[in-house]
């Protein structure tokens, strides 16, 4: 994969930047956020390979921007849930700001690798990898057969391997 020529992206930027900002702003209701995500959209295009012939550049930009919005919202949902969980911890044991950031980065990265897996497959994979449960235990806990657990694990491994090594 060769990164797109910066010229092509430059053209796209000139022609469509204000349009995409307006579109995002309409959807997000917030100008700063719209500008941020528009920026990320073009950065992403610079780093990836553009289809050789872009018939519908706006539809393409819109897809990329929507995906970034989704990631952004997921990150926010994760942050909110994490902060919620910290409220359970005694003040003297609260992790430092830096630790929090690292944990969030790691969780978000893990989440991105798992994105696209169904919630059941994800749960099975995490029960195995995090909780260290063996398959019969997972099967019992979720009311499944060991065979289903095994298939789900294979599916999860294929997915994660592709996400980590084939991007």
């Amino acid at each position, binding site marked *: 994969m060769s990164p797109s020529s910066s010229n092509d992206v430059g053209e796209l930027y000139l022609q469509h930047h204000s349009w995409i900002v307006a579109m995002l702003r309409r959807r997000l209701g917030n100008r700063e956020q719209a500008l941020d995500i528009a920026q990320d959209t073009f950065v992403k295009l610079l780093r990836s390979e553009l289809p050789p012939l872009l018939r519908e550049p706006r539809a393409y930009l819109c897809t990329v921007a*929507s995906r970034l919005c989704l990631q952004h919202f997921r990150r926010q*949902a994760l942050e909110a849930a994490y902060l919620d969980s910290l409220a359970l911890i005694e003040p003297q044991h609260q992790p430092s700001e830096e630790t929090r950031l690292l944990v969030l980065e790691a969780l978000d990265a893990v989440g991105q690798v798992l994105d696209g897996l169904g919630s059941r497959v994800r749960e099975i994979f995490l029960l195995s990898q*995090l909780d260290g449960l063996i398959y019969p235990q997972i099967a019992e806990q979720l009311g499944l057969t060991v065979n289903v657990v095994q298939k789900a*694990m294979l599916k999860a491994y294929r997915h994660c391997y592709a996400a*980590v090594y084939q991007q």
Partner: protein
Amino acid sequence: MTPLASDESSLDPHVVEQAMLWMVRLQSGVSSAGEQLACQRWRQESPAHEQAWQRLNGIGQGLRDGTRGLSAGNVRGLLQARALTSRRAVLKGFAGAGVLIASGYGVSQRSLMPTLFSDYGTSTGERRSLSFDSGVAVQLDTRSALDSEFAAGLRVLTLNQGRMLLTLQQGAQVALRTADVWVRPQPLARLLVSQERSATLVQLLDGGARVEQPRGQRFELRAGWQQRFSDSLAGALAPLPAGAAAWTQGLLLAERLPLGQLLTELDRYRPGVLRCDPRIANLQASGSFSIDQPEASLDLLTQVLPIRVQRVFGYWASVVPA
């Protein structure tokens, strides 16, 4: 879960697939000694086999390393919360959800997550009693946040989020600030103050209190009455509903309350997401429910109403018609 070191070369997909089959067999916890030995042999057959094996190992290892310090259950819950933000919600409900989220975004961290940045906070389902100098006592309800300072010889409290019970003993003095108004209770007053989305609800249980809006309008409230204030408007003075203070005893009192409202209230005390099917939101519920045990309260509801609860991983529950 980043790729292991500088090794990004591609491996034969067939080898990777084989490695996965071995991995799944050995991790199952029910592999025989013979299988374990056979797997060892397979790994030693070629460097590519070993590399594929190590990559798969690395995925699980990366997962554990990245989340060290958090319990497995916690990580699963957090990832679940993250993934619940669905693509469809983003694309379709964009306008609504986006504005809602965007309104919190860009505002100070403080209002985004007040319970974390305040002097005193309660998490979901927690109630907390605090006592300050000179006879000022507070009980914080679930998901609430309070700041406290001593300024110009006066105890000044700031309710950043949630709901509180404030009790003053003889001779005690306190000023309470919310996002909308100042509240100045009289000595011996007992009152509930709730910070709502764009208003403050003040409910007087005993004694009296003065409420002051930023532009100087003043209101006097007496025991047995409640009133809602924004920073510039005031709602109608209304009698205090029965059971207004029940939460301070861990109870939620309902008298022919629409189920939707009851669940909204219960949701505040329950970790995770609680949803009510619109088809049953108008069913009426009466009774006293424990807010300390929201799950038991949900189960109790299923016994008196034609409803059932669908739970997913304990975090996400939907109340639907039976």
